């Protein structure tokens, strides 16, 4: 497992996406898969920073753990905030997503894009830490 820490502030997102880009390249992910993974990780990291840390006044880092195998790239975001399971909420359904822009509630799109964008997404709370795990399949040529 490779591991890298980032300060829990929105300014870190740029560097985080760049780092996910490097991991994806090492793992041999295609351009589209790389983008989807960047998006998914950006969304969850944004939530950790805004809701988990800033909103409640916690000052802490978050970690990116990663592993590249023959078949997949596994990335884990680990944070110190209160327990929050992104999969426990209802995500928007078909009907919500076809509603006119002006009538819609603005929430829930981040987690929706995360789940739709990766090959596998899972959550666990271990040792006082949230772990959000993202898996992308690597298609070998």
């Amino acid at each position: 497992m490779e591991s890298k820490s980032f300060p829990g502030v929105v300014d870190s997102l740029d560097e985080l996406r760049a780092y996910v880009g490097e991991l994806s390249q090492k793992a041999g992910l295609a351009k589209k898969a790389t983008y989807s993974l960047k998006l998914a990780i950006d969304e969850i990291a944004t939530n950790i920073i805004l809701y988990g840390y800033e909103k409640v006044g916690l000052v802490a880092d978050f970690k990116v753990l990663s592993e590249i195998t023959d078949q997949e790239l596994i990335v884990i975001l680990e944070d110190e905030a209160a327990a929050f399971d992104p999969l426990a909420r209802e995500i928007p359904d078909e009907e919500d997503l076809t509603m006119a822009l002006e009538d819609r509630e603005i929430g829930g799109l981040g987690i929706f894009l995360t789940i739709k964008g990766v090959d596998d997404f899972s959550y666990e709370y271990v040792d006082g830490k949230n772990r959000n795990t993202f898996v992308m399949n690597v298609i070998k040529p």
Partner: protein
Amino acid sequence: MAFKIETVIEEQTARMTLHGELDSLSARVFMTEIEKLSGQPIEVLVLDMEDLDFMSSAGLRVLIFSKQKIGTHLAIYIVKPQELIVDTLEKTGLHHSVTIVDQYPV
């Protein structure tokens, strides 16, 4: 990559050119530009996205806000968005509420 935005208002059309990456940090800059238009008689919002390389849900949120703020009559044109950004618009159903074009005026 650093986000940049330029706004030009001509008659009832506001045209914004977006560069770089639009995440929850840079969306604040975009939000502020949109907020400035509220109360003005804008009918058309043209967003030039050819040089925009990334857009998270924070960007979508600003699109939704634009329509609420400027008025539901507002027509939003998105010019030359990159393929992966079109993907995001489609997945979230936002392509029903904006018009994706290759140039504007069409």
